[in-house]
């Protein structure tokens, strides 16, 4: 996910951080401008276009019949797929999902799955034979950093926007969403922690940690990335930042 940053720019960003500043004048715990627009894609059951700064992601929900996994006959299915479209960045290449796209999809998946955001137990049509599969397709359109948080936000916004499929097998009054997990990524640059790294910051960050929290502030998923390290104190500080910013982002879900 890193792009190459010239060493001059690298030093400049690191210097700023030493002074407690960021390249785009934000504070350490400040997200870029966030906009959430839902329902734009009519061919999807639900959809959301999320912009965080210049990063743009669209997520679409499709709900289809499927045969359940043999070991989970009484559970609907959740499938999260992420495409780092070559449209979105000069460094994204067409072809099979990259390591980064796979990690992204799995981190978003865990946030939704582990928080029980969707009540999958209700998505059974006939035990062991026919269940609802919920596909979340994440489509990266314009990439200016922090794709995990933007994607996770688009995914939960699209789920909240989802209408029941027009199918007589569907019997629930609405789409069963019960939690709102929100991912917040904290980057470490020059030993300082900051939320929502933009692309330039990603190019110089030592490591990142993504913490997904739910309404009560508890954690449902964590993912460290990058080749740097975190101390225990830093992890605890990152959690506080993720919880606070997560609450703010959650408010944007309406």
């Amino acid at each position: 996910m890193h792009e190459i940053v010239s060493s001059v720019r690298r030093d400049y960003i690191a210097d700023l951080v030493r002074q407690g500043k960021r390249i785009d004048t934000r504070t350490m715990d400040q997200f870029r401008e966030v906009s959430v627009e839902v329902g734009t894609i009519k061919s999807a059951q639900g959809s959301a276009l999320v912009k965080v700064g210049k990063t743009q992601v669209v997520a679409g929900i499709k709900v289809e019949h499927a045969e359940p996994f043999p070991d989970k006959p009484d559970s609907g299915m959740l499938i999260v797929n992420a495409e780092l479209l070559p449209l979105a960045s000069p460094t994204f290449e067409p072809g099979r999902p990259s390591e980064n796209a796979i990690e992204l999809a799995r981190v978003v998946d865990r946030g939704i799955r582990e928080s029980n955001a969707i009540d999958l137990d209700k998505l059974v049509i006939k035990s062991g034979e026919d269940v609802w599969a919920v596909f979340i397709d994440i489509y990266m359109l314009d990439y200016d950093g922090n794709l995990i948080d933007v994607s996770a936000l688009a995914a939960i916004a699209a789920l909240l926007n989802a209408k029941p499929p027009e199918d007589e097998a569907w019997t629930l009054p609405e789409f069963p969403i019960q939690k709102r997990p929100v991912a917040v990524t904290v980057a470490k640059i020059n030993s300082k922690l900051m939320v929502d790294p933009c692309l330039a910051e990603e190019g110089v960050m030592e490591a990142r940690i993504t913490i997904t929290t739910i309404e009560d502030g508890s954690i449902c998923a964590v993912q460290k990335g990058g080749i740097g390290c975190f101390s225990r104190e830093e992890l605890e500080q990152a959690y506080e930042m993720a919880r606070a910013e997560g609450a703010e982002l959650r408010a944007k879900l309406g």
Partner: protein
Amino acid sequence: MKKPEKLIKNGKRLDGRMPDELRPLKIEAGILERADGSAYVELGANKVLAAVYGPREMHPRHRQQPDTAVLRCRYNMAPFSVDERKRPGPDRRSVEISKVTREALEPVLFLELYPRSVIDVFIEVLQADAGTRTAGINAAAVALADAGVPMRDMVSSIAVGKVDGTIVLDLTKDEDQWGTTDMPIAMVPRKKLVTLLQMDGHFTKEEFGQALGLAFKACEQIYGIQRQALRDKYAIKQEK
């Protein structure tokens, strides 16, 4: 959906259009930050994005051409763009559309100016309702201009077809499915030269000629909207 009894009633189509009438067409240039050029097109219920990268160095190197740039096109549909979720990745249809799209755009480019380079055109269909390849070509041509790639002319594209025995412009999904014939076309609008032509269904000689005439007229109209989109973007830039 079952086949409707009639696709044209009292001279009007299911969505109220006349046979020679375009769906609402909206084009915006320069809507992506990272791409060198981009455009967004809504053609009826179609929503299509195009981005251009390049001219840039071609990798891998052994695919460089010593005397010209290479144009690459990739047409792709989002999984959620159609009724039944489409599995990600290219299929035979998208490979063919990518090829004819490239051949539709290449005639207006001066590729020989950029030896060893590549120009990439990426087209993403976010919502589909028949005519996605023509919407994609319209978007791609504007995105190329937005990227500042030198062009001899614009490329404008639309489908014509036959529905209930009538030659109609710009088919919807229902018309495509229940009609007889679909003929997407792209042209260089000033010189009136066809750069893409595909057809499947049934046309007599006369119908073929009539359909071509309808398409030629519509492409002029589209050309105007494309130019306006580029002017609008330039105007906004100037204001800033």
